[in-house]
């Protein structure tokens, strides 16, 4: 029974992946990609990797899907006004196909050529779990054993938002992202934007808190919080802050900065960069995670909001 389910899941995932590539319409391809992400999340659940499944559902299907929908809409606007859509020539398409096949083939080979039994640090990770005060070995890997990777990941997020903002035309630098919000109309979206955020904030905080001992963590929690922010903005209940706002920039930077500060403090107090003094490991990790969650939520929401388009300078006093 379980085998039949897994087989159906694998076939369906591969079929949807092929469908995503074959579709010619941008919007349809994004929808297929989101379905693919949901199936992949289910596959991770079947493999017992609940943390990865949560991340795949939140980031792979949810956030990336929303980013791609925005990209598809931008492409559609651009092709409507500019030149008719040009299909790349045969050489370009062949090159793209060969490169994609090479990447996919290398990954497949890497997985298939693993020695039996596959090399694993799982036993080591479980043995030293006590020193971190955590119960979830995945969180221990992310925030303690391989904290450098997580730190760099957060720095990449800041670079990503700098990249998005660099698309701002000169006149609106420091202004608000996206088009001006339409006046909010009474309706289902407005109701949802008023009813859901309290629930979403609790769920986001719960996912972060649960991450210490169960699947969950800063990234998944932060994504849920970012979704709540976007819902409120979409319904027209609030506007996106100016990207020139110091408070906003401080919120984006707080996570990586606190992480870095703890890292350098580790050189002095403990014995290495990003080493935590064992008796205080749990509270330090919690503090980093809470600040990181807020920074991730702000950064992801801003990534989706896009480059500033309007409302550049705040009104000067006296005007």
């Amino acid at each position, binding site marked *: 029974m379980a085998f039949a389910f897994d087989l159906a899941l694998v076939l369906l995932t591969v079929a949807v992946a092929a469908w995503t590539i074959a579709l010619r319409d941008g919007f349809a391809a994004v929808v297929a990609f989101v379905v693919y992400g949901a199936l992949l999340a289910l596959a991770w659940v079947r493999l017992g990797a609940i943390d990865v499944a949560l991340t795949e559902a939140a980031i792979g299907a949810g956030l990336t899907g929303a980013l791609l929908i925005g990209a598809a809409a931008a492409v559609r606007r651009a092709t409507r006004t500019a030149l008719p859509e040009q299909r790349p020539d045969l050489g370009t398409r062949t090159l793209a196909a060969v490169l994609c096949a090479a990447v996919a083939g290398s990954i497949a080979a890497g997985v298939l050529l693993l020695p039996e039994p596959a090399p694993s640090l799982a036993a080591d990770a479980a043995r030293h779990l006590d020193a971190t005060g955590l119960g979830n070995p995945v969180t221990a890997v992310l925030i303690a054993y391989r904290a450098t990777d997580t730190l760099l990941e957060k720095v990449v997020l800041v670079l990503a938002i700098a990249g998005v903002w660099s698309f701002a035309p000169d006149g609106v630098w420091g202004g608000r992202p996206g088009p001006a919000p339409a006046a909010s109309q009474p*309706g*289902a*979206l407005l109701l*949802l934007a008023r009813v859901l955020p309290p629930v979403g904030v609790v769920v986001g905080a719960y996912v972060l808190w649960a991450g210490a001992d169960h699947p969950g963590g800063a990234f998944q929690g932060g994504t849920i919080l970012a979704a709540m922010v976007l819902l409120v903005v979409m319904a027209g209940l609030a506007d996106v802050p100016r990207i020139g706002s110091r408070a906003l920039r401080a919120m984006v930077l707080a996570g990586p900065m606190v992480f870095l500060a703890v890292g350098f403090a580790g050189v002095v107090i403990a014995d290495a960069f990003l080493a935590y003094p064992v008796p205080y490991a749990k509270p330090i990790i919690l503090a980093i995670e809470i600040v990181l969650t807020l920074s991730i939520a702000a950064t992801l929401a801003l990534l989706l909001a896009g480059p500033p388009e309007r409302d550049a300078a705040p009104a000067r006093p006296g005007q």
Partner: protein
Amino acid sequence: MSALADAFTVVAIALGVVFFLAGSVGLLRFPDALTRLHALTKADNLGLGLVVLGLAAQAGSVLGALKLLAVWVLVLVAGATVARLIARAAHEPERGA
């Protein structure tokens, strides 16, 4: 008692699957966007509700059953909102976009 719960689960989930099947058939067979949405939302609301009801009998704890119920309520709220947004977009094409 356990056999009774199992029988309840089987019946409820089977009924739920019937709603999902009917919703999928409606999605494929109905002529326009509004009727297709109508078919889909029935599958989501009643189908998922019955599946959740069936699973709640297996949850083992009141808290687990409540969590399942919360999933159903959240899907209901989100589904209803999205259905309304799609219906409006389908009903007033090219409005301002």
